[in-house]
C-alpha cells in the first residue's frame, strides 16, 4: 500500500510539473505565432501557423493536446534545428548522464573515503586538514575551479584536454580523460558535503553501543570500521548522494558551458538564448522526471541498506 501511494504521489507531481512547463510558454513575452513566423508576419501566415500548432484553440485544449503528444514521446519540433525535440534531448542525455555519473562517483569516492578517515582520526591534525579541504571544496565556485584547472592542467601542463567530448563507445580512455576535469569540478561540492555527512555519521556510529559490542567480541579495528560502522553510517549518506545526483544534473549546465561539453545543459542554455521553447520545455520536463525517479531510487537504496525499513516496503 505505501508503494501505491508513493506511485500516486509521483504521478501527481509529474502532472503538476507538466502544467507548469506548459504554462512557461504562455508566460513568455511575445506571441508564439509571430516568433515562429519569422520575417513573414502577414495575417494569413500567422493564422496558418496558429492553426497548424493549435494556437487558436482554448488553452486547456492546447494543454491536453500537448500532454497527449508528450506522453507519446512527441515533445514538438525544435524551432531552431527543425528536428523533433525528443531526438535532440535523447542524443544529448547520455553525455550529461556520463558527466553526472562520473561526478557522483568521484564525489562518493573522495567524500566518503575522506569522511571515514576524518572520523577515525577525529580531532587530530589529519581530521583538521581534511576539514580545510572540505571547506575549500564547498566554497570554491565551479566556474572558478573549472577555469583554474583548464589554465593549469590543460594550458600550462598540457595533461588533459580543456574541452570537448568523446563518446566512451568510440574511445573509452580518451572519453575518460576528457571528462576527468569536468566531473571533478562538478562533483567537488558534493564531495565536500558527503565528507561532512560521512564524518559526522561515522563519529556517531563509532560511539554506538553495537560498535562497542564488536570491540568486545575481539573484532579487528578495520573490520569494525568497514563492516559494522560504515554500513550504518552510509544509510543517510547514500540517500543524500542519490538525491544530490539531481543537483549534479542541474549543476552540469554551468560545467558543460565551461568545458564546452555538448550535453543537455548546453542544449538548454542555447535554447534559452534562442527562445527555442519546445527544447526548454522538454529539458525541464525530463529533468523533473529524472529527479523524481532518483528520489525513488534513493528510497530503494535506503531499504536495501537498512533492514528495518524492509518490512513496511513490501
Amino acid at each position: 500500500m505505501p508503494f501505491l501511494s508513493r506511485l500516486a504521489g509521483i504521478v501527481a507531481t509529474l502532472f503538476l510539473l507538466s502544467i507548469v512547463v506548459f504554462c512557461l510558454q504562455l508566460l513568455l513575452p511575445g506571441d508564439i505565432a509571430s516568433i515562429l513566423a519569422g520575417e513573414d508576419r502577414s495575417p494569413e501566415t500567422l493564422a496558418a501557423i496558429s492553426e497548424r500548432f493549435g494556437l487558436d484553440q482554448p488553452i486547456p485544449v492546447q494543454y491536453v493536446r500537448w500532454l497527449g503528444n508528450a506522453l507519446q514521446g512527441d515533445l514538438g519540433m525544435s524551432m531552431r534545428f527543425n528536428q523533433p525535440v525528443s531526438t535532440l534531448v535523447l542524443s544529448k542525455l547520455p553525455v550529461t548522464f556520463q558527466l553526472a555519473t562520473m561526478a557522483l562517483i568521484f564525489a562518493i569516492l573522495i567524500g566518503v573515503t575522506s569522511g571515514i578517515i576524518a572520523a577515525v582520526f577525529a580531532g587530530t591534525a589529519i581530521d583538521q586538514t581534511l576539514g580545510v579541504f572540505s571547506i575549500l571544496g564547498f566554497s570554491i565556485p565551479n566556474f572558478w575551479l573549472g577555469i583554474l584547472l583548464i589554465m593549469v592542467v590543460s594550458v600550462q601542463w598540457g595533461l588533459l584536454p580543456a574541452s570537448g567530448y568523446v563518446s566512451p563507445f568510440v574511445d573509452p580512455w580518451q572519453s575518460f580523460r576528457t571528462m576527468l576535469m569536468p566531473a571533478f569540478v562538478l562533483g567537488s561540492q558534493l564531495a565536500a558535503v558527503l565528507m561532512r555527512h560521512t564524518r559526522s555519521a561515522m563519529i556517531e556510529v563509532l560511539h554506538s553501543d553495537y560498535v562497542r559490542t564488536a570491540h568486545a567480541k575481539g573484532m579487528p579495528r578495520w573490520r569494525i570500521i568497514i563492516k559494522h560502522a560504515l554500513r550504518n553510517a552510509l544509510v543517510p549518506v547514500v540517500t543524500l548522494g542519490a538525491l544530490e545526483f539531481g543537483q549534479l544534473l542541474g549543476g552540469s549546465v554551468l560545467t558543460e558551458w565551461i568545458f564546452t561539453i555538448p550535453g543537455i545543459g548546453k542544449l538548454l542554455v542555447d535554447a534559452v538564448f534562442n527562445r527555442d521553447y519546445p527544447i526548454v520545455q522538454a529539458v525541464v520536463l525530463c529533468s523533473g522526471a529524472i529527479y523524481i525517479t532518483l528520489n525513488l531510487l534513493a528510497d530503494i537504496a535506503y531499504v536495501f541498506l537498512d533492514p528495518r525499513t524492509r518490512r513496511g516496503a513490501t
Partner: protein
Amino acid sequence: MDDTVADETARGDMTGIASEPVLRVDGLSVEFLTDPGPTRVVSDVSFAIGEGETLSLVGESGCGKSVTVMAILGLLEARRSRIAARAVRFQGRDLLAPGGKALRSVRGRGIGMIFQEPMTSLNPTMTVGEQIAEVLRFHLKLDRKAARARAIALLDRVRIPRAAERIDDYPFAFSGGMRQRVMIAMALACSPALLIADEPTTALDVTVQAEIFDLLRELQRETKTALLLITHDLGAVAEMADEVVVMYAGRIVERSPIAELFVRPEHPYTIGLLGASPEWQSDKRRLTPIRGRVPLPGDRLDGCRFAPRCPFVVDRCNSEIPPLAEIGPLHEAACWRAPLDPDQP
C-alpha cells in the same frame, strides 16, 4: 609504574583464592580527561576471580562498576581516559600491555561480555546469525557453514524458540529479553573462561529478568565459566555469587564471601545497601534507606567518601581514607569502625 615487578611476588596470596585466578585486577584506577581536568572515577580497585567462580560487583548507580569492567576490556575511549594499574591479568596475560595485542586476542575469545543495554548493543544492519557467526569465524576459524550451524545451536541453547528460523532475522525483530539472549549466545560462542555481565537485566521487565538470571545460572553450571556479575539485584547476588565486592564512589568498600556478607556486613554502606534493597531484609541491623547522595567524581573529599552519609561517622573519617583491611577470613572492609558494634552508632 615501578611496582609491577614487586607485584609479581604478591600474586595469588593477596586475593586469598587457592587456585590461580582467571582474572586478577590489582590497583586499577581510571581517570576521565574531562573539561575542568582529569576526574578519577575508579580508584585502586583490586579483585580476582577463580575458575568457574562468580564474583558480584555491587554498588549504587554511578559508582564506577561499568567503567571498571570497560577498563579491563580496553573499551574506554583511549583519548579521553587514563588507566593505571599494578596489574590486570587474564590467565596470566597482561591485558594492559602496550599495543593491545593481548587484549584483542582475549576479547570475545577468553572473555565474553554482555552489556547493560540490549536494545542498542546489537548491530541493526546485520542478522543475529551473522553477528554470532562473525565471532566463531574470526576466533575459531570456522567456515561459513560450520559457523552458521554453531550459531543455530547457540541460539537454541539460550532458549530462543525456532532458532533455525530466527537466525536470519535482524535485531529489530527481537524483544529486549530475546536480544539479551542473543548477546549471551554471542558472548559464550567461543566458550570463554570468563563471562562479564554488566547489569544484564536492568533494562528488562521483571519477569524477563528472572528468566535471564535462570539462563545464566544454568549455562554457568554447564560450561563452568567464571562470571563477573554486575547487578543491583541482591536476590540474584544471593543466589549466584560466591564472593561479593561492594563499590562506593569509585572505591571498594567491602569484599566478602557471599555467606558472610548477608549475615555480617561490616561497612556501613553495605549495611545501608542491604537495608535499602527490598529483596533482602537483614533483621539485626536494619537501617533506614541511605540518606544523602553519592558524591560526584569531581567532589573534593579528604577522608572516607561515604562519611557525609554515614550514621557511624567519627572525626577520623573526615580526614583519612580508611584502607581495605582484613576483618575476618576472606572478609575485608574499608572502614575505621570495622568491625562494627551496631549498638553504638
